[in-house]
């Protein structure tokens, strides 16, 4: 009789959590599995040259005390062309295996950046041949942005208006 009473009390008083736990465990496993497959994303900020600055741009940018560098990196079929206000540098040719020589480009840009006049310059223009694939574009932007040692080069990149 006492056992029966205890049984009734037990049934009425305690919620059976086992099915709920099964569901939660399944959801957790599903979420963890999806998270493992999730790719980590990042972004690169680029802009285009503005043609209608007007008064706002004049307010934002005080008249420069030195001529702008106007650094432009172009990706062609044979390699990189680096040009600036001073002139055009010799082409950075491709490696013997046909790959673009990103390290040499970074070294060249590092030299340009190390000039005292260009120490504060962060802007650069980018242009490429019509058939250059997007992964080469992104790798070039990476090479223009930062050195292997972490020195910032030219992170403010504008896509030039025209195509080579």
């Amino acid at each position: 009789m006492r056992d029966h009473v205890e049984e009734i009390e037990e049934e009425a008083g305690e919620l059976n959590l086992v099915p709920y736990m099964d569901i939660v465990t399944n959801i957790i496993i599903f979420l963890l599995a999806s998270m493992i497959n999730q790719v980590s994303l990042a972004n690169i900020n680029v802009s285009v040259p503005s043609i209608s600055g007007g008064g706002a741009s004049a307010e934002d940018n005080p008249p420069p005390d030195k001529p702008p560098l106007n650094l432009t990196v172009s990706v062609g079929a044979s390699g990189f062309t680096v040009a600036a206000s001073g002139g055009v540098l010799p082409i950075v040719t491709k490696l013997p295996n046909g790959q673009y020589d990103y390290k040499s480009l970074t070294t060249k840009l590092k030299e340009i950046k190390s000039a005292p006049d260009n120490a504060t310059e962060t802007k650069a223009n980018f242009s490429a041949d019509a058939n250059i694939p997007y992964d080469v574009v992104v790798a070039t932007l990476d090479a223009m942005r930062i050195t292997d040692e972490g020195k910032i080069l030219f992170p403010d990149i504008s896509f030039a208006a025209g195509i080579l």
Partner: protein
Amino acid sequence: MPGHAESPQVISRLEGKKAIRSYARKLDEPEVIKDLNITPMMDMMTIILVFLLKSFASSTSNLTFDSNLSPPKSTTLLKPKLAVSVVVTKKVILVEGDAIAPINVGKVDPTVKRDGENGYYITPLVEILEKHAKREKKVADLTGQKFEAQLMIVADQTTPYRLLTEVIYSCGQAGYANYRLLVLKAKGD
């Protein structure tokens, strides 16, 4: 027969010993857990579930990367921010998940371009982005914030620069001037 003629005292002692032995045996036996208290485990699992769901919801990516859309890898460390997305796959241009213009072998179908094959102006892309820009400007006005004119561009790694330029030109025509190129983080970072 001394064995059979045990006194009642001896018998009771034997019984007592037997009782002690059986009690000791009972003590040695491991206690069978009839009912495991799973409530703390439940609490823990619920917390993990909420945490996982939260981190899932906050991830900006609802993009599906497949053979038609595999973004390039980059060393950049900037985290992606939410913006109107323009996706350029191998076959189609999408704005916020809606197909806008078809692509054939790295070129936008000339029939959807204002100036024909050599043109840059992709008419349906400009039209839809103008609507988004108008909406964002209105929201910016109402909330007193500055319209940032930012777009998130996701493109396949084989996309030719010409097509990218056409897309960027069309975005520019709709009033967007700043672009976030969505890339995959290179391994080791």
